[in-house]
């Protein structure tokens, strides 16, 4: 198998997270892709339509797999939102259909490297999906970390990902706060920007590692809020999004200054990119 050859995976389960976002559970038809680390992505191929980079939202503890619905085999879990032709085709994939998978690619969150510290996990919108493996890794090895704080921003309550899981995480000791930009009458949680949660949350800025994923503007402002609280820039990791095509640092579509995001990212330290991500057309 080469880095550019998709491995066929069969859709074994399709779960609608929201009106435009689904989680697919995929099992290999033949050879599986190598194990992944939380934060990495794959290139998912809707045959005949195209290929897109999708972060892995599944549990990293089993070599990137969780047990399948029938406990039969390794499963790759990916959550994606229908925003274009390819993602719409993938979101429409039904159990039994086959998709192509390349990867895993890129850098990871290095959750284990934050042992002994508070974990501050900040997600905006669909950015919670790539951070779900961080939460699962923290839960799987809970004693290695001090506080685990999850701060989530969503557009509206109906856009919130994994609401049932979030409730379960809270019961298992994760300190969770959720805010929405626009609330409906039934919403009893917070309303406002996720940066307000960063300001209010209880954690030790001098002994924490922050993991941030969401739209780039949200990540910039979140990083500034974290810096203002005293979190060192090198302790803040963000997951960048660029136009990733090949996934292996060959084509250059995802270049950001000296970085090729598919290879050197998507997860990067904020001190390494703070000056780059504010440059237009870089």
């Amino acid at each position, binding site marked *: 198998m080469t880095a550019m050859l998709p491995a066929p995976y069969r859709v074994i389960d399709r779960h609608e997270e929201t009106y435009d976002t689904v989680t697919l559970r995929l099992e290999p038809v033949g050879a599986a892709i190598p194990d992944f680390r939380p934060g990495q992505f794959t290139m998912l191929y809707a045959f005949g339509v*195209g290929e897109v980079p999708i972060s892995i939202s599944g549990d990293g503890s089993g070599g990137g797999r969780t047990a399948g619905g029938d406990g039969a085999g390794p499963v790759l879990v990916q959550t994606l939102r229908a*925003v274009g032709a390819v993602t719409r085709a993938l979101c429409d994939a039904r159990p039994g259909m086959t998709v192509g998978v390349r990867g895993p690619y890129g850098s990871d969150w290095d959750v284990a490297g934050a042992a002994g510290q508070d974990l501050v996990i900040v997600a905006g919108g669909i950015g919670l999906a790539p951070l779900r493996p961080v939460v699962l890794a923290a839960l799987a090895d809970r004693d290695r970390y001090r506080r685990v704080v999850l701060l989530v921003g969503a557009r509206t309550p109906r856009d919130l990902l994994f609401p049932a899981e979030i409730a379960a995480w809270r019961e298992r000791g994760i300190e969770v706060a959720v805010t929405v*930009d626009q609330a409906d009458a039934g919403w009893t949680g*917070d309303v*406002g920007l996720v940066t307000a949660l960063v*300001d*209010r949350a209880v954690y030790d800025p001098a002994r924490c590692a922050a993991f941030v994923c969401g*739209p780039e503007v949200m990540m910039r402002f979140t990083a500034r809020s974290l810096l203002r609280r005293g979190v060192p820039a090198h302790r803040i990791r963000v997951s960048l*999004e660029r136009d990733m095509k090949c996934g292996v640092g060959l084509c250059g579509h995802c270049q950001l200054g000296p970085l090729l995001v598919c290879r050197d990212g998507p997860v990067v330290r904020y001190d390494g990119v703070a000056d780059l991500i504010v440059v237009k057309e870089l």
Partner: protein
Amino acid sequence: MTPPLLEHPFLAGLPHAAELTGRARLVEFPRAGRLFDEGARADRFWLIQTGKVALDLHVPGRADVVIETLGDGDVVGWSWLFPPYAWHFGARAVADTTAVEFDAAAVRAVCDADPVLGQALLRRFLGVMCDRLQAARIRLLDLYARDPYLETPPATPPSGPPPATAPAAGSRP
């Protein structure tokens, strides 16, 4: 030594803060208790110790729309700083809330008499206002919405050929 009532993050290190003693008292709002209504006289402000307060706006035909929620350590109310001293929004507790309540007219008088305290306090409020303005501007961007171009791409793009592959998206935000 700072009086216990004034031991709030918003006032930490504020010069001459002791002059605010006697202009503040501890208050409690039960869940659903209203702090103030739009258009009413803005004669107080609050520093939340614990709890949660929602700023809301009455929209005819709809339930009150929550604009923003404020929590532990936050400031509630700045309309008392400027004429006509009237609230632009309403506020209600959405959880049992304990706060330090200040007499706005008395605080204005103290600030007028002590410009050092007045300027320092105003700077603190400006910082809060700046943060909330920035947050409001970012929310205006509707960052979490789908890109309308990606959602309904035109049959023929304005210029150039269509991309070889569809726009990247999915769980890459």
